[in-house]
């Protein structure tokens, strides 16, 4: 109990941060029309591609000679980029369709 409390105390900034972000996430989506569900899903998909920052971080900090980590990191960056670029481009294409001749 005490440990949980002090864990909370040490990380209270993070708790607020997480909770506020959750609220923003929820509020921001409220009341989307059905038609936008697919592009919204795909747009959100592109945004979690932010995980690529972590992959780049790995590569920037890999110890010299650790080829295994380097290879995995390379793969991670490729996959992350796919997620980001593919996600945004696909979403844009979908939304372009929606707009057409509106």
């Amino acid at each position, binding site marked *: 109990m005490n440990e949980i409390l002090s864990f909370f105390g040490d990380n209270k900034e993070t708790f607020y941060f997480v909770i506020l972000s959750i609220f923003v996430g*929820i509020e921001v*989506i409220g009341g989307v029309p059905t038609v936008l569900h697919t592009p919204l899903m795909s747009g959100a998909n592109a945004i979690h591609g932010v995980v690529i920052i972590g992959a780049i971080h790995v590569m920037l900090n890999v110890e010299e000679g650790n080829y295994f980590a380097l290879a995995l990191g390379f793969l991670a960056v490729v996959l992350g*980029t796919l997620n980001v670029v593919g996600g945004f481009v696909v979403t844009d294409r979908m939304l372009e369709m929606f707009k057409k001749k509106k």
Partner: protein
Amino acid sequence: MKHNLLEICYLIGSITFIIGLKMMGNAKTARKGNLIGAAGMTIAILGTIFLHEGCISATIFGLIFGAIGLGTAIGWMTAKKVQMTKMPELVSMFNGMGGACAALISLIEYNHLRHAAEELPPFALAAMAMMGGASMMYGTMLAIIAGLIIGTISFSGSIIAYLKLNGTMNQPIRLPKYNVINTLVMIGVFTFGGYIVVTGGSSMLVYLLFAAAIVYGVLFTIPIGGADMPVVISLLNSFTGLAAAFGGFLYSNKIMLTGGILVGSAGTLLTLIMCKAMNRPLSNVIFGAFGGGSATAGTTDIKGSIKDIQVADLAVLMNYSKRVVIVPGYGLAVAQAQHVIHELELLLEERGVEVKYAIHPVAGRMPGHMNVLLAEANVDYGKLIEMDDINPEFEQTDVVLVVGANDVVNPAAKSDPASPIFGMPILEVDKAKNIIINKRSMNAGYAGIDNLLFYDPKASMFFGDAKKALTELVAELKTME
């Protein structure tokens, strides 16, 4: 200095994510919103590379840009080339890539941590533990393992979802008692992960965990019918968001945190909203009450008989109508008949018939499916009428042409409380003067239930593959002049 600049890039990125997502929730601003998000992401990525403190060897630099270049090329081309109807597959695939990326990061960082711990003399570890470093270690470990499990599930689940949407794996595969098995496997995976966090584990164990999570992702997805995939993808989407957020904890990286949590919570809500639009609880989707469309077809006893109509008669009927409403459904998408239908529409309009499309929100297999499809065929946006607006108009409609739709026009949703789709709002086509239904057979649709509409005295069936049948109809109409 550089570091602080980088933090500002991240702050800007986070804000663009929020604003972008917000704008994507509104049809008018959606496209701009997506671009804003993309701009923020670019800033964050470039910032991470160019504002890195300490020097980067040319090799690393080259490798990073190589990887980004490769990913961009593949991602861009695939996204640009894919057919409109294959969008959900693609989203699913990209989602899986993100999950895999998170999992890989966790694998690398786990090895890194192990390595560091092994190089330290034991007493140093003990000292760290005393100074509260242990709780920090646990925290790091937790972030790594959670990111690994969730990212991996999202990865393998998305691949299965991709295969299902793709048609490669189009029947739900259900082991006996699959719900129990799945729950047990899930508990197993998380317990295993917890064990590693507490004991520190070993590389071997972590690879095992990775494998177990892959298996769970597969088990989670295979029992669910292909048609429910959009919901599943949305759920896996929020999983990847969560995995990214754990990456954020690991590196105390704010933009990974905001981006990840934002998508995690927005994705979860979106999943629930989707379920609500289909009038089904999420549990029903995951534990698969229907969605295969194979088991329960044709259970109701049908009284009455069906009529069918020949293409020549139909052409005459439509030619001399004043108001025609077309109801597109899943079959139209499968048959790729969107272009023919547009041709039909133009032809009729030329002859002075007023043509509109009635768009049901969950017609087809993904939200907005019909809008995307018809937009692709250059159908005028103003002709696509939403359910609530078109329903009062059916009474004045001479001919309703239902093309490959079934559940969305099933009157059981209004009249039969025992029906699985009871309560779902439908297009009230039975109010029109003539109802023509085009499909290939008397088979059921997505929900696997019979449709009394077909037996309506005002209804006639126009059997055949949508594309073929409509092409014939158009040809017939042209000969009539």
